[in-house]
C-alpha cells in the first residue's frame, strides 16, 4: 500500500521533472550537460573521496618525500611525504565548501538588499544602491585582500572577505528584476485582491526573479573558487597543513622543478571546477530564458498568428 503510493509519487515526480520545459531545455544544451557532469563529478569526489582514500591528508611521512606518481600514490607525494591525491580529494571538500558558502552568503545578502531596494524604492533604494556603488568602485579582489589582511588569515575571515565584496552584483540583478516584475499586471492583480506586501514579495516577486539569480550564482561560483584559491595562495586564506588547493599550489611551487605533480594536480582541479561551473551557468542561462528557447515551435506559431 505505502510502497505503491511511494511508487506513484516517484512516477509523478519523474513525470514532473522530465517534462518540465526548463529541465528539458537543460538536457538539450551540450554545455550545460558537460558542466553538469564535471560539477557533479567534483561534488561526488568531495563527498565520497575521503571515505575511499587510505591515507590521511595531514599526517607527515618524511620517508616518502616527493615520490613520483606510482600505483600506491597515483599523484605522487609532496615534500612532507603526504599523498597528493588524498590532499586533492580533501581539498575539493574544503575549496568547494568555501566557494559554496561564500556564494550562499553573497546570494542571501544580495537578494535581501535587492528586494528591499527594488520593492520599497524611494530613499531606501537610494541609500542601498549608493552603498553598492561605493563597493563596486573598488576592484573586488583588491578589496577582498584588504579585508582579509585586516581581519587576519583564517578560513572564516576568507569567507567573510569574499562575501563582503561580492554581494553587490546580486543586489543589482535582483533590484532590476524586481523593478521589472513589480510593474507586471499580475502583481497589481494580486495587490488588488487584498494580498499583503510580504505575500506579494514572497509569492510573486521572489519566484519570478529566481531564474537570473540562480544563473548568476552558478556563473559566480567559478570566480569564487578562483578568488578563494588565490587568497589562500597568497597566504590569506586556509593555512598549511590544511589541504586547500590554493595553499597546495603555494607550497608546491617551491618544488616546481623536481616535482611538477605538486602544482599540476591542484591546478588542474581548479581548472576543472571553474570550467564546470561556468559551463553549467551558461547552460542554465540559456535554459531559463524562455524567449531564447529554441525548438519550441508552438510558441513560435502562436507569436506569428
Amino acid at each position, binding site marked *: 500500500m505505502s510502497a505503491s503510493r511511494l511508487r506513484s509519487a516517484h512516477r509523478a515526480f519523474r513525470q514532473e521533472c522530465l517534462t518540465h520545459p526548463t529541465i528539458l531545455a537543460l538536457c538539450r544544451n551540450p554545455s550545460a550537460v558537460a558542466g553538469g557532469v564535471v560539477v557533479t563529478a567534483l561534488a561526488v569526489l568531495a563527498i565520497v573521496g575521503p571515505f575511499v582514500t587510505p591515507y590521511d591528508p595531514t599526517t607527515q611521512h618524511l620517508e616518502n618525500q616527493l615520490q613520483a606518481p606510482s600505483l600506491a600514490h597515483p599523484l605522487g607525494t609532496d615534500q612532507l611525504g603526504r599523498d597528493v591525491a588524498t590532499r586533492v580529494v580533501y581539498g575539493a571538500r574544503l575549496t568547494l565548501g568555501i566557494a559554496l558558502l561564500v556564494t550562499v552568503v553573497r546570494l542571501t545578502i544580495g537578494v535581501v538588499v535587492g528586494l528591499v531596494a527594488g520593492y520599497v524604492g524611494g530613499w531606501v533604494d537610494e541609500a542601498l544602491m549608493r552603498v553598492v556603488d561605493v563597493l563596486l568602485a573598488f576592484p573586488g579582489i583588491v578589496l577582498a585582500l584588504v579585508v582579509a589582511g585586516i581581519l587576519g588569515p583564517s578560513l572564516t575571515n576568507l569567507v567573510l572577505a569574499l562575501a563582503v565584496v561580492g554581494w553587490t552584483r546580486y543586489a543589482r540583478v535582483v533590484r532590476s528584476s524586481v523593478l521589472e516584475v513589480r510593474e507586471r499586471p499580475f502583481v497589481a*492583480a494580486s495587490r*488588488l*485582491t487584498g494580498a499583503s506586501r510580504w505575500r506579494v514579495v514572497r509569492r510573486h516577486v521572489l*519566484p519570478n526573479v529566481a531564474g537570473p539569480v540562480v544563473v548568476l550564482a552558478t556563473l559566480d561560483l567559478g570566480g569564487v573558487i578562483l578568488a578563494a584559491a588565490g587568497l589562500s595562495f597568497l597566504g590569506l586564506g586556509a593555512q598549511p597543513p590544511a589541504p586547500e588547493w590554493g595553499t597546495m599550489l603555494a607550497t608546491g611551487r617551491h618544488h616546481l622543478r623536481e616535482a611538477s605533480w605538486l602544482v599540476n594536480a591542484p591546478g588542474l582541479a581548479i581548472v576543472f571546477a571553474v570550467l564546470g561551473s561556468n559551463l553549467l551557468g551558461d547552460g542554465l542561462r540559456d535554459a531559463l530564458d524562455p524567449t531564447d528557447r529554441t525548438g519550441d*515551435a508552438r510558441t*513560435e506559431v502562436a507569436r506569428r*498568428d
Partner: protein
Amino acid sequence: MTESLLDVRDLCVQFKGSDGTVRAVDGLSLSVEAGEVVGLVGESGCGKSAAVRAIAGLHGDDAQVEGTVTFDGTNLREAPAERLRQLRATQISTVFQDPAATLTPTRTVGSHLREVLRLADRPAERSLRSVTGFDLGLGRVVGDNVDSDRRDRAAALLDNVGLDGSDFLDRYPHELSGGEAQRVSLALALASDPDLLLADEPTTALDATTQMDVLDLLDDLVSERDLTTLLVSHDLELVGERCDRVVVAYAGRTMEAGPAERVLSTPRHPYTAALLACRLDGADPGETLPTVDGSVPDPTTETAGCPFASRCSHATDDCRSKAPPTMDLGDDGRVSCGERDAIAAPEPASASTGGDATTGIAGGAALDDDTACASRSRTISVDGGELSFAHTGASQSADAGQSPSTDRSLPADGEPLLELEDVSKRYPIDDSWLARLRGTDRYTDAVDDVSLSVGGGETLGIVGESGAGKSTVIDLITGLDTPTSGRIQLAGKPIGALGDRSREQVVSIGRLFQHPRSSLDPRQRVRTAIEEPLVEAGWESTRCEDRIRELLTLVGLDNRHADRRPDQLSGGQCQRVALARALALEPALVVLDEPTAALDVSVRAQVCNLLVGLQTHLDCAFVLVSHDLGVVGHLADQIAVMRDGHVVEAGSAAVVCTDPETAYTRRLLTAASGVPDPNPAPPANYQSLDYE
C-alpha cells in the same frame, strides 16, 4: 475561368517542435484573380499568418513548406532566392499586423521609403545597406538629383496615404501613432507599385476608429490602382464588407470559399455560420449571444476527419473519422463539409437569432447553479434564455426610469455605490526644479474633471480611443493611482490610494485586466491563483477548496483546469480564471479593463455571455472599459464616452447608442458596426477632423 494572379494549392507549413510537429497550415488552397480583393479569415491559431509568410517566401528555415504557390505564372516555391527577392522588391508587397514593429526604430520614415524606392527602381542591384549592414552614403555621391527625386516621390507617397509628406519624412517610428505607423507601412508597400498586396491583419492592433480609417484608405487605394489584394483578418464581418471573395480557414485548412456577399448572407459551412452568429450588432443589449464552444484544435495532433468536428453540432461519426468532401458550388465557391443537411438548409446568419435558431452553434456559458458543469456545453439552456430576458428588461428600464420589478436599477433614494466627483489626474512631462524655476514645467492632464457614478448592480461603460484616459480612470478607482484633485467615494466613504484603504474597501473592488494572460503569475497554477485572495482573507483550506470549485463552475471552467498553469490555457480560459479570482471574495464592484480586446470573435461572445450571466447571478456592479462601443453597448446600462481626458457624452446606453449627441460618438458607433462609413472623411485631412 480567367488566369489567377496568385494561386495557392495544398499549402502545408509545418514546424518541428519539441512536442511533435506543429501543422500550422494543413492543405490550404486559394486563388486570387487580378484586380480582386480576397479575404482570408479564421480565428487566431488557424495558420493565417504562417500561410501568408509561406506565400511571400518569408517563412523561416525551421518551417517545412509543401504545395505550390504560383504567382503570375512563376512557381514561387521553386524560384531561386534572388528571383524571390526581386519579386518582393517590385511585384509583391506585404503589410504586417504590428506596424510599429515593422519599422526600424533608428531610421526615419523617409529613409525607409527611399530604400524601397531604390530597390524598386533597380531590383537587380542588391541594397548596399543589406550587404554591408550600413549605408555608405554613396547614393549622395553618385546621384544627388536621383536622391532628391526619391525624396519628392516619398513625400508624394505619404500624401497618398493621408499623411503630410513634408512633416512625416523626417520622423522616427516612435514619433508615430499606431494608425500613422500603419499608414506609413501602407505607403512602403505601395512604393514599388506592386501587383499583389498581402495584408496580414493590417488593422488588428489599432483602435476601432483608426481601424476604420485605415481600412477605408486601403479600400480607396485598392480601387484607385486596381490592386490585387489578399486581406487576412480574424474578423469575418470587417473583411466581408470590403472583399470580393472570402476564404474561411480553420486549423490550417480551407473550410469555405466564395463571393463575399454569398458567404456573409448564406454561409454554407457550420463554422462560417458560427463565426457570423457571434456578432454583436444584431443582438439586443444583454441578450445571450450564440457562441462557438471549445477552441481551435491543438496543431500538433493530426486529425483524420474534419478539424471542426469537435465544435460542430452537426458532426457525425463520419465527420470525425473521414476527411470532409469538398463540394463545388459553382459561382458560389466551394465548401468542405460532409454534412449535406447543414449545407442544404443553411440558416440565414443575420445573427439576430437569439436562441437555438442558429445552426451549428452551441450555447456558451449558461449559468445553471450546480449542474452547470455537466450540462453546460451543447445547447442553449432554458436558464440562458431567462438570464437574457431578465437583463434585457433591466436595461430597457434604464432609460424609462426606475423599474421596481428588477433589482438592477438604481435605488431611488440610496447612495450610488461608486462616485467620482470632478476627478483629475495630471502627470508631469517635465517638472524638474530647473524647469519649474524657469517656468517651463509641463504637465499632461490624463483625466480632467471627470464625474461618474455607478449604482449597485449597475453597469457603467466607459468608451473612447486609446489615450482617452480610460485606463487612468480605472487605476484611480482601484487605487493603483491617486487623483491630483477631486474625490472618489465608495458607498459614501472617500477612498484614496490602495495602501490607505481598509481591507473591506480593497476586496469590495475586483479588477479584470486587459491582458488576461499577463495578469496571472506564469508560475502559479490556477488553483493557487484563485486561492490567494481567500487565503489572504484567512479562510481555512477546506472552505477554500469548496469556494475554488464553486468559482470555477461559475466562470464555466471545471476542476481539471485547477491544476494547469496559464501557459496551458487558451486566452478565453485565462480570462475566465482572472474573472474567478476577481470574484473570489464577492466584490460589490468589478472593474473590467477591455475584457474582450485580446480575444477572438467567438470567445468574445462567450465572455460577454458570461458577464451578463454573472451580473444577474451575483448582483454586482460593473465598470466596463473598452474602445469598442459594440461591446459596451451590449453590456452597459449607462455609458460615458471619453476623449482626451474629458467625458464628452454620458447617458443611458440605449440613448447613447441610438441617438448620439456628438460626432465623436457617432464615429465610434460606425466603427463598432464594422460597416464602411457612408461618407468617409477624405484621408488627407483625417488628422484635423473635428469630432465635436
